[in-house]
């Protein structure tokens, strides 16, 4: 194996290991939110996008209506659609290949694929990361859901705080310049005001609208 190839494999496996562990937390928090093991597993198999999954179960746990939970999960999944613009050319032709590649188009597989120096290594990085995370995330979701059922209160293990930290971890790489930091701060402040004043679930919808408004405020007269 060439050094470059080894570097690609090592990057992919590192990412896979980290995400798989985080899957345990999803499984446990999901059963604590009131979903059964099957419902939890369906989310990891078919929704397969950590941020959207945590948003959906978080809002369900908070008592939000179904459509609000779906809307928040869907809006958080929009970035995957943008990633797919980058991953589609890497994958190439073939219906089944593209079907699987689409489902495996997430933060990590896209990031690893785009970090590679050649198209061939991009392809390797994408498939290795996508396959590894899909298997690892689903296996660990099941472990978390089964263990979580036995644990009782996930709060005593700090898993509710882990979910909050996970959202912060997903947000962090996106707030490395002034404009997104301002958007994040405005959305956070609005959320604090909105939580006790608006119906459950509506604060995230308001936050999404804040994002659109902030885009136009920040790009006023520049387009």
């Amino acid at each position, binding site marked *: 194996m060439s050094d470059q190839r080894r570097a690609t494999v090592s990057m992919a496996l590192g990412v896979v*290991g*980290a*995400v798989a562990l*985080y899957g345990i*937390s999803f499984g446990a928090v999901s059963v604590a939110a009131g*979903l059964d093991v099957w419902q939890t597993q*369906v*989310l990891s198999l*078919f*929704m*397969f*996008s950590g*941020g*959207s999954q945590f*948003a*959906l179960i*978080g809002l369900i746990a*908070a008592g939000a209506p*179904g459509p609000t*939970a779906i809307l928040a999960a*869907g*809006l*958080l*999944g*929009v970035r*995957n*659609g*943008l*990633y*797919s*613009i980058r991953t*589609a050319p890497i994958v190439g032709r073939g219906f089944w290949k593209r079907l699987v590649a*689409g*489902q495996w188009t997430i933060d990590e597989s896209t990031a690893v694929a785009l970090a590679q120096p050649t198209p061939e290594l991009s392809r390797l990085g994408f498939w290795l990361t996508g396959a590894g995370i899909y298997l690892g995330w689903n296996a660990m979701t099941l472990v978390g859901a089964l263990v979580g059922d036995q644990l009782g209160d996930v709060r005593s*293990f*700090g898993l509710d*705080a*882990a979910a*909050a*930290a*996970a*959202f*912060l*971890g997903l*947000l*962090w790489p*996106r707030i490395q310049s002034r404009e997104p930091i301002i*958007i*994040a701060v405005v*959305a*956070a402040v609005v959320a*604090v005001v909105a939580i006790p004043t608006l119906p*459950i679930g509506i*604060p*995230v919808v308001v*936050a999404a609208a804040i*994002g*659109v408004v*902030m*885009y136009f405020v920040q790009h006023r007269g520049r387009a």
Partner: protein
Amino acid sequence: MTLWTTILIGSVVVAATKFVGFVLPARFTESPTVQHISDAVTVALLAALVVIQTVGAGAAIFVDARLAAVVVAGVLLWRKVPFILVIIAAAAVAALIRMLGWMA
């Protein structure tokens, strides 16, 4: 809406979104405006979810061990500590504080 309906519709919506780049014409999907608005919405949503998950308790604000855990997570992220260690540290901080009975 039953819980199963929410789960299935949510899954279809999120999964279908991943195929945008495989089916839509590039001139729409590669538009900088579309990409920038999507980035802005994602940042705003994630920021709101951090707040809701950290101090939300149904339709009320409730400060407890989660806040301390998220502050620790922020410091670790700033120090470029790997994602998975940040998550574990946050859980450990909240678990420890609750074990000691400092915050609810």
